[in-house]
C-alpha cells in the first residue's frame, strides 16, 4: 500500500492551498450575493476537508477499505442533514418554527 510517500513539499503545497482557500472563503463572505454565500462557504469547506483527508490524512495512499469507512460515514451524515432539514422546509403545520409557549394559548375566544 504505502508505496510512495509524499515529500515535504507536497505537504507544503497542500498547506498553502488550504490557507489560500480559507482566505478566499473569508473574502467571498463579504460579497453581497445573499444565499449563494452559504453554498460557496460550504463548497469551499468541503474542498478543504477533502484536501486534509486526502493528503494530511493520507487517504490517497490508503487501501480501499480505509477510504470506504469514512466515505460511508460522510454519506450517512449528509443524508441525515438533508432529510432532516427537508422536514421543516416542507412542513405544512404552522408556524414552521416554534412560537413562544405563552402564545400557544387557545386562539379561540
Amino acid at each position, binding site marked *: 500500500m504505502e508505496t510512495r510517500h509524499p515529500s515535504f513539499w507536497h505537504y507544503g503545497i497542500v498547506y498553502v492551498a488550504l490557507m489560500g482557500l480559507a482566505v478566499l472563503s473569508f473574502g467571498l463572505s463579504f460579497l453581497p450575493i445573499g444565499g449563494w454565500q452559504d453554498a460557496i462557504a460550504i463548497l469551499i469547506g468541503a474542498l478543504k476537508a477533502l484536501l486534509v483527508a486526502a493528503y494530511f490524512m493520507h487517504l490517497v495512499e490508503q487501501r480501499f477499505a480505509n477510504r470506504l469507512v469514512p466515505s460511508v460515514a460522510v454519506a450517512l451524515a449528509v443524508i441525515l442533514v438533508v432529510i432532516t432539514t427537508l422536514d421543516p422546509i416542507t412542513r405544512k*403545520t*404552522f*408556524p414552521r418554527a416554534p412560537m413562544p*409557549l405563552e402564545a*400557544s*394559548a*387557545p*386562539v*379561540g*375566544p
Partner: protein
Amino acid sequence: MNELLRTILFLPPQATAEATAVDHLHYFVILTTMCGAALVTLFAAGFVIRYRQRAEPDEHHREAPGPTTPGWLETAFITGMFSLFILWWVLGYHEYVRLRVPPRDAMTVYVTAKQWMWKFSYPEAGAQEIATLIVPAGRPVKLVMTSRDVIHSFYVPDFRIKQDVVPGRYTTVWFNVIAPGRHEVLCTQYCGTYHSTMRAEIIALAAPEWDRFIGRASPTARIAGQPYTMAETPGNWQMFAPAQQLDLVRLGEQAAARLGCLRCHSVDGSRHIGPTFAGLYLSRVPLENGEEVVGDEAYITESMMDPLAKVHQGFEPVMPSYLGLISPAETAAIIEYVKALSPVPPAPDQGRGSVAPRPSGTPPPGEMGQPPRELGTRPPDTRPGFVLPSEQGTPIPGHPIQPPPQGRIEIRP
C-alpha cells in the same frame, strides 16, 4: 364482508368514511401478511417432514449437492415482493394524504392539551369545553391543536386518526363524522404519570341539536366584558343524553366526570393529583400557607373558580380555573356529589389537620369516572347562594333547571 373482517380483527366501529377506506387497506395488508407468514412456514414445515434425515451422518458421510436456486426464481421473488410493497406504499400514502389534508370548508375547533386534559375552544360559538368535544355530524371538522407542556397525541380509534400535539407548534387533524354518536379520545403519546387517564369524548350531534348548541352562544355577553358562562350557552351533553332519571348527586357525578374533575380527584380517599373528594366536605383542609379552612360549600366553590387561592397542603398548584366553564347548576351538583361522598360529617375534634383518608361509609373504590356503588342520596340543599334542581324535577322557585316535558334534563339560563 366488511363487518365480518372488522369483528375478527377487533377493529372499532367506522365512524367516518375515511375510517372505512383505511380499514379496507388494512384488510388487504393484514390478510396478505398472515397468508405470507403461514405459507412460508408451511412450506418450511413441509420440507422438514419430506426431507428429514434418514440416518445419523458420520465422519465420512457426504450429502448430495442441494440444488442452487435458479436466477429467475430469485428475480421473481424479489420483483414480486417489491411490487407488493410498493403497492402498499402507494395506497398507504394516498390514504395518509387524505387523512392529513383537511377540506377547505372544514369547521375549525382549537384544541389545547395539557397534562392531563384536553380543552376545546369553538371560535363560532365562543364556547369552551374540557374533555368533551361537541361537533356536528356530517360536516368536516378541523382541529388546530397545540400543547401547553409536553407532547401529547390526539387519537380517535373510531375515526382512525391520530396526530401528535406539539408544544410551540400547531398541528392539525380533521374528520367528518357520519352519524350522531359518541367516540372515545385517547392520548397516545406518553406524557407523564397520568398519561393513561388523559381521555376525552367526542359527541357528534345531528344538525338541529348542533344548531341549538351553537346558537345558544351569546357573544354579546362577552362583548359586555362578562366572562362567558355555560349557563348562557348550554353547550352541554346532558341536553342530548338519553332520558334518564337523574338526581342531583348523580348529575354532579356525571358533571365531575365530564369536566375532568375525576381525572385528578379520587372519590375513594386515595391520593391522586389533587386531594380526594371523599370526606372532603366539612373537613379541615390544611393549606400551603399553613392556615386551615373548613371544606364547606364556599371553599369548594372557590377552589373550582380560583383554585390557586387556597391550595391544599402537599399538592401541586396545577388545577386550572373553571370560572366561566361551569354553570352554577353544575357547580351545585358537584358540591352535592362531594357531600354525598362524606355521609357522616366529621365531628369538630376529629381528623384535625388532615382530611380523613377514608371515612367509614365512603363508597369502595370504583373505576375512575364510574359511579361508586352506593351513593348516599341527600335531600336537596336549599341554602341561598346555590341553585339546585330538585330530585324529582319539581321546580324550586327561582331555579334555572327544569325537567323538560320529554323527561330530559335541560339546563337553561
